């Protein structure tokens, strides 16, 4: 395979054209004439988490709420482990970014007074099937934004400790990219596909999170030595069985209660009403033989049922198709629910890059926004917009003092060296007897059985984590010698390598936090108690010389301005 080399230079490179990435690009274009390149491995019109659409914006400050009450809620739901400075600075912008996306064309439901219609205490109802095309159209309207669709970035280019660009390749053409920039914003999303999924067969990708978000941003940061935080706070969603469709539409939108097979509202057993509790309580019902569990919809009116069909067609078609195909709609049968496999996703939990208040990572010149940025759980769509905006403003400030990189002989040698790494996968290796799929299956099995997957009811056995670590390292060695026939194979190989790096970091974090917290997100057999006296702090890590170094960081107050200092 002959790869052509394309060297590009820009002011700000945005890796990932999803929710946060597109909003960052729009912010830069509206506030400056800086040149922007978005490198997107899919197509920005339908990429990332919002590809299928969404029917609520879950982070909004209603009249009877405040920014402080929002931060209080996120802190309580995350059992204290949040960076209040990050949640607070994003929360300040939630309503403005909502109005911005509405001005771009997103239909938001309003009451007779023109107020947004609430869904729950902090959400609003939208018609969001088209949200991503709306964002993409706005991005394409700016001449200073160049979009490279089908370009997958694989590693940062570093000058000493500073990020000055990234390497990548086209999935459609035989082109290797070296993109130099005065600043880089990472907005690649979180990581799916680490654990064996709910549907491990033909429908293996019928999962909660976008299966094409494979943790590239995390992995690139880990390999470059960026400090990462709270990977041990996994996210596990509570979803409709089989179709893995959202439950919030029924629970929040319709007010349906969670019941066990006897019809008992088991959440009533608990004082807590947090997100992880609703999953935990469901798992507990299953374990004591009171499962399966359901959302009680039986008895809703035919009109409500018809509305639910439409609501799901708006963002998760499989559920409506299932209802109609089985001939048993939600008015005649309760909707069965189950927990998903665990994900690493900083838009819901606190996993991701350790950033300062300006969203700069510990690598100068690299900013992070959205699911890839840590410390700030429950961002959802509008929080990712807000964070994309903050990262963009900070990157603009940063480039004032940065000159473009001069492509020296050193840089040309570095480009050739990286290109050789890609070409290695196209050289037929007779000893490479394992396939890409095999490595993926093996990784998911290791994680499921040894790092608290579905088959273990999410329980972590610390004594098994060392085996998991060793096996993931072995799989990484195998992955480095896989054979690629075409550029799509190359993408699959880099995706599996990235996920293995995320697994390595996740295992290290699980080993480091010696307590249980967030219910099933991190529930340890050896350390079953939550211990606020010892563990009300962040577990961070830096990957150096092939090993992780653990750093413990204190919590940050909401009015503090956090800067990286050591």
């Amino acid at each position, binding site marked *: 395979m002959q790869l052509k080399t394309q060297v590009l230079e820009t002011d700000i490179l945005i890796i990932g054209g999803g929710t946060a990435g597109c909003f960052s690009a729009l912010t830069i274009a509206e506030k400056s004439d800086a040149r922007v390149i978005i490198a997107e491995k*899919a*197509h920005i*019109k*339908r*990429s*990332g988490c919002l*590809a*299928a659409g969404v*029917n*609520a914006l879950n982070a909004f400050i209603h009249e009877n709420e405040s920014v402080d009450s929002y931060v209080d809620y996120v802190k309580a739901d995350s059992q204290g482990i949040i960076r209040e400075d990050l949640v607070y600075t994003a929360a300040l912008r939630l309503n403005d970014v909502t109005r911005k996306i509405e001005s771009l064309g997103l*239909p938001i*439901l309003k009451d007779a007074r023109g107020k947004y219609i609430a*869904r729950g205490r902090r959400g609003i*109802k*939208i*018609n*969001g*099937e*088209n949200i991503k095309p709306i964002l993409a159209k706005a991005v394409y309207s700016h001449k200073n934004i160049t979009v490279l*669709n*089908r370009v997958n970035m694989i590693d940062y280019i570093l000058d000493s400790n500073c990020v000055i660009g990234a390497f990548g390749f086209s*999935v*459609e053409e035989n082109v290797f990219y070296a993109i130099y920039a005065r600043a880089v914003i990472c907005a690649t999303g979180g990581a799916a596909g680490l654990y064996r999924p709910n*549907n491990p*067969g*033909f*429908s*293996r*990708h*019928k*999962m909660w999170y*976008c*299966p*094409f978000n494979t943790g590239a941003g995390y992995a690139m940061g880990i390999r470059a030595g960026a400090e990462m935080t709270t990977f041990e706070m996994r996210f596990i969603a509570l979803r409709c069985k*089989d*179709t893995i469709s959202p439950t919030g*539409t*029924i629970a*929040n*939108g*319709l007010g349906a209660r969670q019941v066990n097979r006897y019809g008992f509202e088991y959440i009533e057993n608990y004082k807590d009403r947090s997100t992880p509790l609703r999953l935990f309580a469901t798992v507990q019902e299953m374990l004591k033989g009171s499962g399966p569990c359901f959302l009680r919809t039986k008895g809703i009116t035919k009109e409500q049922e018809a*509305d*639910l*069909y*439409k*609501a799901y*067609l*708006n963002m998760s*078609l*499989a559920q*409506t*198709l*299932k209802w*109609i*195909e*089985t001939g048993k709609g939600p008015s005649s049968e309760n909707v069965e629910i189950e927990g998903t496999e665990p994900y690493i996703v900083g838009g819901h939990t606190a996993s991701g890059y350790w950033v300062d208040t300006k969203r700069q990572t510990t690598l100068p010149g690299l900013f992070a926004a959205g699911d890839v940025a840590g410390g700030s759980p429950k961002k959802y769509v509008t929080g990712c917009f807000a964070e994309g905006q903050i990262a963009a403003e900070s990157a603009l400030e940063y480039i004032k003092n940065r000159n473009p990189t001069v492509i020296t002989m050193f840089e040309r040698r570095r480009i050739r060296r990286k290109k050789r790494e890609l070409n290695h996968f196209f050289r037929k290796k007779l000893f490479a007897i394992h396939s890409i799929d095999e490595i993926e299956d093996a990784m998911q099995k290791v994680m499921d059985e040894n790092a608290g997957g579905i088959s273990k009811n999410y329980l972590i056995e610390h004594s098994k984590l060392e085996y998991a670590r060793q096996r993931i390292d072995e799989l990484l060695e195998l992955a480095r010698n896989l054979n690629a026939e075409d550029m*799509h194979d190359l*993408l699959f190989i880099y995706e599996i390598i990235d996920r293995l790096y995320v697994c390595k970091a996740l295992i290290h974090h699980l080993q480091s936090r010696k307590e249980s917290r967030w219910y099933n997100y991190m529930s340890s057999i050896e350390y079953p108690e939550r211990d606020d006296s010892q563990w009300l702090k962040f577990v961070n890590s830096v990957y150096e010389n092939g090993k992780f170094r653990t750093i413990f960081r204190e919590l940050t107050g909401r009015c503090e301005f956090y800067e990286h200092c050591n």
Partner: protein
Amino acid sequence: MSIAIDREICKGCGACVEICPGRLIYRSEEGWSYMKYPRDCWGCASCVKECQHSAIRYYLGADIGGKGAWLTTEDKEESIDFIIVNGEKQQVITVNRKESNKY
């Protein structure tokens, strides 16, 4: 969970190839599109909605309860018609882009 493309209807415009977030759809030498990696489909239906010829059928895998029913769409600008074919029955649900969601 996956999609199937009806070769008789496909005009080979390539819109689905371009839009799939996993780049799972390819074009045959004859020009029509086909799903190359059916096991990797997320079920987002981006391709179904993008296809102006209603050539793409969205279905549930047998492992998640599929029994042969499928769904396609017709774009009516202000609304989308979701056409669900279940054996001999056919049902059309019209979803207004601006007023469909009450939840």
